[in-house]
């Protein structure tokens, strides 16, 4: 039996906090909830449980069954079979960097390659070896900025066109800091005047400005002015990027972004509820000691052979404890590997081709939908990558329900998170969608336009 404390220790602890019994600690929980009746059925055999679980699982629909136009942060790309095959090799199949990391040169080399790929992709100087997901990576950008200014700059300006979940996670991370304000939600970014208003809010008390690229509505915004103005005010700028889009677009580094973060899911990781996804975090050399998380470096061993090591660990939580930049920066070792394999398999040209296919197909879809009666593009003059907003003649949830009859998953209902965007659907198109799929989607949209 596992006995963490002796009865003597328990007694001492209770006495210290002035409580007579352990039960007393649970007084605040209403009595009827303290020991609820579980009503579990009697045990069944393995064969029976397998059949029952299969039945439960079959109630779910997936992108195997449906053609999906749903994106909003997670994207259904094709994943070459070799990714999973290599990923599941016993030598790699553990999510953690091993203790005594230098003994696992293969793992460290894979991480090093991942970092190199990410810096190449983003045009930034350095990449760490990952966070949980894009949202936590974005929150770590706020962490970095806070520590870089030693808490003296109190304002984090997060554009309203940043993924709403990311904005929530940034707020969650920042709530424990003294007087830090997360602003930006109050500025409507429906048109370009919004970005001017946002730029005007940047001042000498601003630690970080966070924008998304392409933004949550799929738009490719030119942030040059905003970055320059931020730097004039001494503030840092973080880009939240979609990695696939960087196959076509000018990278964050070319905008002189200080930090570039994103979710690596589109790079070889299947969409699934709750992950695992992958947080990519890149920055400039000058912020490296304020960056959270793992970093692998290349060196030579005593015999002069190339070798990989964990480097700059003194800034990390296991050494710096509460003074480290972050204490919640667990990496996603296996997912960095998936991304590394995915990008290696595609190669530079293949990756550009995926981005180009997404772009072309999305533009074809937008063009077709814009011609439908009752439908129009919400931002017809703004350039976009593979996602765009459609104004619909009926509430989006009603349309999506009807689309399911056609085995189509419609786009994201923006009114769920932007109350002012009633009847607006965020449509994503990846390379997996065929022209035929788009034509069927367009026809179905027309069919369900009216009650």
């Amino acid at each position, binding site marked *: 039996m596992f006995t963490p404390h002796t009865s003597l220790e328990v007694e001492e602890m209770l006495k210290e906090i002035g409580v007579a019994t352990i039960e007393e600690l649970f007084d605040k929980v209403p009595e009827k909830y303290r020991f609820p009746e579980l009503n579990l059925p009697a045990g069944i055999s393995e064969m029976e449980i397998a059949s029952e679980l299969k039945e439960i699982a079959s109630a779910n629909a997936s992108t195997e069954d449906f053609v999906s136009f749903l994106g909003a942060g997670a994207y259904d790309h094709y994943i070459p079979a070799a990714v999973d095959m290599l990923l599941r090799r016993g030598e790699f199949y553990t999510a953690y960097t091993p203790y005594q990391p230098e003994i696992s040169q293969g793992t460290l080399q894979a991480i090093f390659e991942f970092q190199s790929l990410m810096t190449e992709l983003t045009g930034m100087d350095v990449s760490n070896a990952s966070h949980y997901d894009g949202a936590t990576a974005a929150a770590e950008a706020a962490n970095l900025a806070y520590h870089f200014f*030693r808490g003296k700059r109190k304002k984090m300006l997060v554009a309203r066109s940043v993924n709403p979940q990311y904005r929530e996670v940034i707020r969650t991370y920042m709530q424990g800091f003294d007087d830090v304000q997360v602003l930006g939600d109050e500025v409507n970014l429906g048109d370009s005047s919004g970005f001017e208003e946002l730029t005007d809010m940047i001042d000498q008390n601003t630690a970080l400005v966070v924008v998304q690229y392409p933004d949550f509505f799929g738009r490719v915004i030119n942030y040059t002015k905003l970055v320059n103005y931020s730097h004039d005010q001494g503030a840092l700028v973080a880009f939240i990027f979609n990695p696939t889009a960087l196959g076509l677009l000018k990278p964050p580094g070319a905008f002189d972004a200080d930090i570039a973060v994103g979710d690596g899911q589109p790079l070889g990781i299947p969409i699934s509820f709750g992950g695992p996804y992958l947080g990519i975090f890149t920055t400039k050399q000058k912020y490296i000691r304020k960056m959270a998380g793992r970093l692998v470096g290349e060196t030579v061993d005593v015999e002069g052979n190339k070798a990989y090591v964990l480097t700059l660990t*003194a800034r990390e939580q296991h*050494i710096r404890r509460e003074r480290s930049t972050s204490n919640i920066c667990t990496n996603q070792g296996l997912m960095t590997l998936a991304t590394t394999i995915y990008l290696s398999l595609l190669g530079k040209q293949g990756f550009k081709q995926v981005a180009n296919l997404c772009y072309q197909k999305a533009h074809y879809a937008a063009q077709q939908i814009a011609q439908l009666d009752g439908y129009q593009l919400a931002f017809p003059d703004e350039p976009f990558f593979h996602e765009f907003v459609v104004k619909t003649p009926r509430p989006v949830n009603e349309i999506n329900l009807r689309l399911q009859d056609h085995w189509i998953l419609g786009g994201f209902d923006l009114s769920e998170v932007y109350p002012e965007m009633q009847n607006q659907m965020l449509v994503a198109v990846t390379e997996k969608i065929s022209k035929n799929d788009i034509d069927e989607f367009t026809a179905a949209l027309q069919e369900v336009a009216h009650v």
Partner: protein
Amino acid sequence: MKTPQGLKYAKTDEWIKVEGNQAIVGISDYAQDHLSDVVYVELMVEEGDTVSKGDTLATVESVKAAADVIFPASGKILEINEDLADSPETLNNDPYEAGWMIKMSLDDPSDLDALMDADAYTAYNKEREG
């Protein structure tokens, strides 16, 4: 191990030297020796900052550890050693002269009374080494 006379030493291995109206602060030879090769120095204050005894002055990172340097007295920062950012190894090579960290004015010179003189600090180090 060098422990110059005329300086005051803290148990956390900072030294402080009073010169006229100002005091100079750095880390001791014992401290740099135990840290081994210093690779990064981050001063946590700027000129003009008001600081209290016990506040963090700097973080010193060596190949094997990261240590905080603590203010041994309260006062106002007059000057910081900008050179340390580019040549952190100065802390190893010359901890008492070129390796100074900040110059400050003291709010209350009696802050120094709680510190050790060179002989007491030498004895304290000997004791720590067992």
